[in-house]
């Protein structure tokens, strides 16, 4: 095993960076890291072997990143925009409306899970919230986590949002956690309900659960691993991916080019009926697609954001596929 040292500095500030607060991978050749100490996000391109600075995008310093297929998503802190933003090249960014978020509510962690966008937010008066969006970040709804705490007055922090094997995991921390409060919640229904998943975890000296920090949940070959705050590593067998898997496996359609002017190509793996819906939820077109590439004429659509919705015949949330595109 060979390890090669390389020094990382902030290309803008010419100063050394320190421990990254958050990080994510993007495709097979990019690593995204947030360094709060330098108030900078860096993107590392393996092909070029260089780190590049991701600008704050008019003051919207991202505090969380995630990837979905080829698209990089980020939370936007809210100086000129509050909500989510996405990019296909890491340079040019598109902003979502973020309807439903309060003023001074700062988005933090962001994660895609089964075609639903989850986001953890902070508000200096109203506290922290876990939210989700079913329309690519245009509108956000709140998930109430207070029922899962024995002391609802405690201030709870979401340390990480983790998606694997069709399940959604939320790791939590509390400043003064009462005994019995969970540090890990799991949802098997796309965030509609949660149950505590701490069976077998040790209890700290103060009688409270130990935290599972950011990035401390990993999955491999049916095994879920969790590293606790004290460094101890635990594992649990949860089985191989079921019919509801992560979003990249679940998605069965590809859309390009995006943004698009007149001809949109939709590639599907099975014959499917699709609807093209505008941001108001109005169906503007319906199509039956065959396996492979399908070129759709959208020249008559007005400029804006649209969603392609398809269903494999099921009625559950997880069976619906939706993709976003922009008509120029």
């Amino acid at each position, binding site marked *: *095993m*060979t*390890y*090669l*040292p*390389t*020094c*990382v*500095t902030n290309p803008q500030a010419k100063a*050394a*960076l*320190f*421990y*990254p607060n958050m*990080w994510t*991978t993007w495709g*097979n*050749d*990019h*690593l995204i*890291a947030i*360094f709060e100490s330098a108030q900078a996000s860096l993107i*590392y391109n*393996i092909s070029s072997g260089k780190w590049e600075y991701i600008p704050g995008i008019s003051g919207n310093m991202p505090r969380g990143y995630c990837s979905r297929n080829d698209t990089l998503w980020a939370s936007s802190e809210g100086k000129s925009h509050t909500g989510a933003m996405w990019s296909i090249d890491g340079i040019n960014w598109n902003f979502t409306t973020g309807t439903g978020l309060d003023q001074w509510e700062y988005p933090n962690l962001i994660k895609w899970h089964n075609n639903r966008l989850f986001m953890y937010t902070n508000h200096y008066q109203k506290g922290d919230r876990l939210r989700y969006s079913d329309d690519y970040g245009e509108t956000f709804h709140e998930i109430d986590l207070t029922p899962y705490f024995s002391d609802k007055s405690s201030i709870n922090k979401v340390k990480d949002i983790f998606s694997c094997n069709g399940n959604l995991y939320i790791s939590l921390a509390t400043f003064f956690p009462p005994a019995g409060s969970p540090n890990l919640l799991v949802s098997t229904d796309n965030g509609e309900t949660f149950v505590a998943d*701490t*069976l*077998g*975890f*040790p209890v*700290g000296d103060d009688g409270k659960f*130990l935290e599972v*920090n950011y*990035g*401390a949940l*990993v*999955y*491999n*070959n*049916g*095994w879920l*691993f*969790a*590293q606790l*705050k*004290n*460094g*101890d*590593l*635990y*594992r*649990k*067998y949860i089985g191989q991916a079921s019919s509801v898997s992560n979003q990249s496996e679940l998605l069965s359609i590809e859309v390009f080019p995006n943004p698009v002017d007149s001809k949109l190509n939709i590639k599907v793996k099975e014959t499917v009926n699709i609807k093209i819906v505008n941001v108001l939820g109005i169906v503007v077109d319906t199509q039956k697609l065959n396996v492979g590439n399908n070129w759709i004429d959208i020249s008559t659509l007005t400029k804006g954001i649209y969603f392609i919705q398809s269903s494999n015949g099921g009625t559950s949330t997880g069976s619906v596929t939706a993709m976003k595109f922009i008509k120029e």
Partner: protein
Amino acid sequence: MKKYLIIGLLAIATSVVYAQGWQPCGLTDNSFLKTIGTSVVVHNGKIFEFHRNGVVNTLNVSTDNGATWSVVNSDWMTANSNSLGYNSATLASVGKRLYLFAGGVCGEVLFSTD
């Protein structure tokens, strides 16, 4: 007879519950006060675990989903002890490379290509 049947059922129930719970990998004997940097990642189908206990940095690897572990050669960590000695550390897997962000004085990133 009834007593043994109840005990048997309880034993089965206990084993089922245990099978659904978390099991320690038996890697470390850390305490929060001693451990500064911890991280875990899946890389090329292997589980890598890093922790710092006192002044010792350790990188473990498992090729059988956590059943058994071995310590990765630590010469490179000794050579970069300045970076690894001060703060937390983070493992990340990208493509064929395993990265270790070392939160030290110069913000080094170490990566492995094998």
